[in-house]
């Protein structure tokens, strides 16, 4: 909206946009750098590496939503209206991944257990089931 902002306000807002850009770029470069480090040296270990990746992904998501989508500068009613439904994702992710893991162990431990729809036949010809 057209407020009575002046040129120095505009300069400041453009500066903060580029600051966010550098944060996103550097975080992505760190992610790729760590992936290469793991590829060539095996360090950090897969579990630590994946935890770092997920953490950095959330950092990037925060900056995109808060700065680029401007949500960080809206009033709290709007912030909470948008963020509260998304909190469901926490349980959504835990429940489904745990379910997938439990399926895998169920199949391993009891060969007679009913198989899921996906055919787990011995490998021949790269899994063409049509």
């Amino acid at each position, binding site marked *: 909206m057209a407020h009575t902002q002046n040129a120095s306000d505009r300069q400041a807002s453009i500066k903060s946009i580029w600051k966010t850009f550098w944060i996103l770029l550097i975080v992505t470069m760190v992610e790729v750098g760590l992936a290469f480090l793991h590829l060539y040296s095996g360090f950090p270990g897969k579990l630590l590496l994946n935890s770092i990746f997920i953490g950095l*992904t959330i950092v990037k998501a925060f900056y995109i939503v808060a700065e680029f989508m401007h949500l960080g500068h809206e009033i709290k009613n709007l912030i909470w209206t948008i963020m509260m439904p998304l909190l469901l994702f926490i349980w959504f992710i835990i429940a489904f991944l745990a379910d997938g893991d439990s399926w*895998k162990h169920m199949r391993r431990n009891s060969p007679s257990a009913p198989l899921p729809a996906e055919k787990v036949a011995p490998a021949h010809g790269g899994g063409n089931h049509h």
Partner: protein
Amino acid sequence: MDNAVTAKKKWWTGGHSPFNVSYGKLMMWYFLISDAFTFGALLISYGTQRFMAEGWPDPNVVFHSFPFMGHANLPLVFVSLMTFILIMSSVTMVLAVNAGHYMDKKAVVKWLSLTIVGGIMFLGCQAWEWTHLHEVGAWWGRNPFPNADGTAAISTNFVDFFFTITGFHGLHVTSGVVLNIIVLINVLKGTYEHRGHYEMVEKVGLYWHFVDLVWVFVFTCFYLL
């Protein structure tokens, strides 16, 4: 009583505009929440299948090619370029929104045009990647990649989810480019200058940033983890 909530207030205490944003922007936010759940459901079902599977391909083996580099082994390099292009186009979009606040038509045209170019470049990269993967034998229902532990693949879940989710994301990029072009035409025609505000640029901007946001998660889930 004032009509709109001033920026200083932290909580709504009455007045006409509880969220301090226009109807159109609020509805865009609500749409984006629903779209977030759609993408979330796709990515979580991918994760569930991956947790269920005894073996899964190694992304560094699957995604190791770069255009015009032949058989050079360059894991992650091409997708990093795609990520950079999309982040860059998000920056040009937010600069267009910013220029709109100051009713600077010339700057809006410049930044919005660059955003469209960035979107088209991203789609071009994705088209190359899909073509390349198709050439090495990957498609829905066809998985040429062995598992990371060296065993042969016994399911096509990996390729099915990859093409479905990146395809759905690419569809969003495509519709974002189309929306940006429509808004650019209106900017050039002077529609928003006449209207007195460039809020339409903000609304397509929200959508465009959301597409970038989804890519951040797709990048992590398919290429890094």
